C-alpha cells in the first residue's frame, strides 16, 4: 500500500539542505539537464561523429568520458535515491501515471513531446529547473529568475490548451 507523501515544506527544506551542502562542498549547485547533454553528446558522437563536431557538443566531449561527468553520476544518484525512497514507501510500481480515463499511449506521447520541448528549452537556458531555477535561484542569479518566471508564465499559458490531457 502506497504511503502518503511527505509534508511539502519539510521535503522542500530537506531538498534545500541537500542543495546547500552541494554549494558548500563543491562550490556548485545541483543539475539534471547537463547530464542529458553529456550523455547525448557521447551518443551522437558514437552514432554520427561528424554531426557532433560543433563547439557545443565538443565542450561536453572534451570534458572526458560521459559516464565520469559529475552531473551524470549525480543524476544516477537521483535515480537510485528515488528508487529506494519509492520502494520504502510502497510506491514502486510499473505504470503510466495518467488522469483517470486517459489512454496510456496518449499520455506517453505527451510526456515524450514535452520532454523534447524541455530539452530544447534547457539547452537555450543553459540549465533546467534544477541548475537554473533551484540552484541559480538560491544564489539570486538574474538569468535564473528570468528563466523561472518564463517557465511559470508559459506553463500557465499552455495549460488551458491541454484540457483534454489534464482535465
Amino acid at each position: 500500500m502506497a504511503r502518503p507523501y511527505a509534508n511539502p515544506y519539510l521535503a522542500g527544506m530537506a531538498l534545500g539542505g541537500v542543495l546547500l551542502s552541494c554549494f558548500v562542498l563543491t562550490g556548485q549547485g545541483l543539475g539534471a539537464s547537463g547530464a542529458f547533454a553529456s550523455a547525448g553528446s557521447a551518443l551522437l558522437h558514437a552514432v554520427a561523429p561528424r554531426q557532433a563536431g560543433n563547439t557545443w557538443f565538443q565542450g561536453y566531449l572534451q570534458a572526458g568520458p560521459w559516464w565520469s561527468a559529475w552531473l551524470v553520476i549525480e543524476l544516477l544518484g537521483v535515480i537510485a535515491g528515488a528508487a529506494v525512497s519509492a520502494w520504502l514507501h510502497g510506491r514502486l510500481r510499473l505504470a503510466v501515471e495518467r488522469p483517470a480515463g486517459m489512454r496510456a499511449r496518449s499520455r506517453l506521447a505527451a510526456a515524450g513531446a514535452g520532454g523534447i520541448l524541455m530539452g530544447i528549452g534547457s539547452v537555450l537556458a543553459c540549465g533546467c529547473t534544477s541548475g537554473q531555477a533551484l540552484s541559480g535561484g538560491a544564489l539570486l542569479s538574474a538569468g535564473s529568475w528570468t528563466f523561472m518566471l518564463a517557465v511559470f508564465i508559459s506553463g500557465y499559458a499552455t495549460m488551458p490548451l491541454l484540457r483534454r490531457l489534464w482535465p
Partner: protein
Amino acid sequence: MNFSNSLPLALVIGIGFGAALEMAGLGNACKLAGQFTLRDFTVLKVMFSAIVTAMLGSFWLGRLGLADLGAFYVPDTFLLAQGIGGLVFGAGFALSGLCPGTSCVALASGRLDGLAAAGGMLGGVLLAGLAMPALAAVYRTGAFGSYTLPEAFGLPYGVVVALVTLLALGMFALAEQWERRP
C-alpha cells in the same frame, strides 16, 4: 575544502536530491500538473522551501564567515536565451507534467511516462545542440555574465534575501488559502 571533482560525493548528493523529490511526491506527473491546473501547489511549496533554505543558509554561512559566498558558482545570465528557453521549457513542463530531474524520479519509481519524458529530453537536447551554431546570436542579447538580482536592482544582498523570503511566505499563504477554498 573543495570536492568539486569527487564522483562519490556526486552520487551521495544525487541520492539525497532524488529521495527528497520522491518523498515530496514530485515523481508523480499528475501532482506536478496540478501546479498549472491550480489544484495542487506542491511544486511551488517544495521549490520555494528549497530555494529559501539554500538561500538563507548560504547567506548566513557567508555572513558568519563559515563559507565564501563569492566562491559559489552563479549561473551566467543570458536574458534573451533564458527568457525564450523558459517559455519553451514551460510548455514542455505543462505537456509532460514532469521536468528533467523529476522525469528521472518518475522512471526510478517505475513510471513509464518518466521514461518517455527523459527520452524526449535527450532528443530535444540533441536537436538544440545541432542548431547551436545558428542560435549563437541569441546569447549575445542580454549577456551579463555573472549577474545577480541585488546588482540588477541596486539593492544590498541581504535586502533581496529578505524580500525573496517574504515573497515565498506570501505565496505559501496564498496557496494554502486557495487549496482550502470551498
